[in-house]
C-alpha cells in the first residue's frame, strides 16, 4: 500500500504497530496555519495519547463526513442563508480538523497511514474508516438534530481527551480544537432554538462516545 505522505517507512508490521515505534525520518504534510502546531514527537509514545489520537481521528472523520453530507443535502439548500453559511463553515473546519488528526497520529508513530484506513493492532487487518451511514436527510429538523448530537459527542470526547492527555503540547492542541468545536455546538444550538451553552462542559469517555456513534457508522474497533 502506498502512503500519500511518507514513502520511506519500514515495512515491518510489528514495527509499525508498536506503540513505541519511532518514526523514520519523513516530513508530514504542512497543515493550514490556522491549526495548532503538531505536538512534538515524544521519546516514548504514551499509550493514552496514542489511543486518544486514534480515536479522535476516527471521530473527526465521521463528523467531517456527516458535516459535508448535511451541508450538501437537499434540505440544506432550502435553508436560510444564515443557516447554510453556518453549516458550510462547520463542514469546512471539521474537514481541517480531520486532516490535522490524521497527521497527528502519524507524528506519534501509531500508524503512518494518513490515507483511507487504520490498522487493527491485534490482527493487522485494515479497518474500514468511519463513514456517516444514517441515511439521507429529509428535513431541516433532522439535519440539526443529528448535527447537535454528533457535535455534542465530539465536544465531550475532545474535552475528555484533554483531561487524559499526557503530552502538554497535545493537551493544548486538543483543547484548541475542542474550543472551536464548542463554538460550532453553540451556533448549531442557537440555530436550532436550543440553549447555546451551559455553565460547564462535560467530558465524555471514548467508550461512551463510540457506543453512541456506532449506529451512525463509527468504527468502535479503534478503541480496542
Amino acid at each position, binding site marked *: 500500500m502506498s502512503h500519500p505522505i511518507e514513502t520511506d517507512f519500514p515495512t515491518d508490521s510489528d514495527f509499525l504497530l508498536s506503540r513505541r515505534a519511532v518514526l523514520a525520518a519523513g516530513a508530514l504534510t504542512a497543515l493550514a496555519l490556522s491549526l495548532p502546531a503538531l505536538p512534538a514527537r515524544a521519546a516514548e509514545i504514551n499509550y493514552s495519547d496514542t489511543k486518544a489520537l486514534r480515536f479522535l481521528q476516527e471521530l473527526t472523520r465521521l463528523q467531517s463526513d456527516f458535516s459535508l453530507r448535511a451541508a450538501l443535502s437537499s434540505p440544506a439548500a432550502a435553508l436560510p442563508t444564515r443557516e447554510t453559511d453556518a453549516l458550510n463553515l462547520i463542514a469546512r473546519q471539521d474537514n481541517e480538523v480531520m486532516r490535522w488528526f490524521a497527521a497527528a497520529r502519524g507524528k506519534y508513530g501509531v500508524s503512518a497511514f494518513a490515507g483511507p484506513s487504520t490498522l487493527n493492532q491485534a490482527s493487522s487487518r485494515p479497518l474500514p474508516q468511519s463513514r456517516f451511514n444514517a441515511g439521507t436527510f429529509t428535513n431541516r429538523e433532522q439535519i440539526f438534530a443529528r448535527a447537535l448530537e454528533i457535535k455534542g459527542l465530539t465536544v465531550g470526547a475532545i474535552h475528555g481527551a484533554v483531561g487524559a492527555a499526557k503530552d502538554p503540547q497535545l493537551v493544548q*492542541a486538543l483543547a484548541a480544537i475542542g474550543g472551536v468545536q464548542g463554538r460550532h455546538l453553540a451556533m448549531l444550538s442557537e440555530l436550532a432554538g436550543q440553549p*447555546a451553552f451551559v455553565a460547564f462542559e462535560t467530558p465524555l469517555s471514548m467508550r461512551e462516545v463510540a457506543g453512541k456513534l456506532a449506529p451512525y457508522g463509527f468504527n468502535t474497533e479503534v478503541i480496542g
Partner: protein
Amino acid sequence: MNQPQIVILNSNLATPRDESRRAWLRHAGMLAGAFALAGTASSEAQTPATGTTGAATTPDAPAATPAPMTDREYLSVVEDKSTNPNHPEITIPRASKTARPGDVDILNFALGLEYLEADFYARIVQAHQNRAYLSPRVYQIAQKLAADEASHVEAILDILGRAAATPVAKPQFVFPENVFLGQLAFLDLASTLEVTGTGAYLGAAPKVQSNDALKFAASVYGIEARHTAIIRMLNGQTFSPLASEIPLSVEEVTRRVTPFIVV
C-alpha cells in the same frame, strides 16, 4: 529575574487576602516569571471569602444563631439547587485536594478573569434594567452569561478552598461608559473579554500539573469558547473564524485586562 513566589498553601483560611489589583497582578507575574508591578496599589485588606465549603471563618462578629428550620423549610433548601451546592443534580466538576502550587497560581489567575467577566455582565444586566438598551435576545444572553460567569467564580473558589489555598481578592473594575448605553459597544467589549478568557485558559493549559485542575479548567474553557461564538454571532461577526482557538500568554492577557482593573 525574580523567583516566582509560591502561594502559601496552608489551612489558615482566615488569613486576610492580599490587596485586590496587586494580588491579581502578582499572580500574573508568578506565571510569567518576570513581571514588574506598575503603579502603586492600595493596601486595603479585605475580608477572606468563606467559600462554598464553609470551612473558613471571618473576623466579623458571629451572626446570631438562627432558629431551627422546620422539616418543610429544610427540604426546600436541600431541593433548591441555588442554595444547596451539594444538590445531586448539580454536576459542577470538583477538584480533589491535589492542586499543586503552580496550579493554585493558575487558578487564581483564572479567578481574576472570571471576576472581571462576572462583574462586567452583572453590571450590563443592571444597566439594562435601569434603562433598556439591549435587544431582548441580547439581554437574555447577557443574563445567561452573568449567571455562568458567577458559577465559574464560585467553582474556582470552591476548588481553592478544598486545596486550602488563598484565593486572590476580587479587584475593582471599571468599564467604558458606552457599554452601558449601546448594544454594539457592549458586544464589542464582551467579544474581547471572552476571546481573552478563552485564550488565557488555553495558554495556561499545558502548565497545569494536576489532572483534576486540568479537567476543571477545560470544562470552563470550553464554555468560554461557546460564549465567544454567540457573542460574535450577535455582533454580526463570524462565529468561528478559525478551526482552532488561539492561546494567549500571561503577558498578553494581562495587557488586555489591566485597563479594566482599578488601581
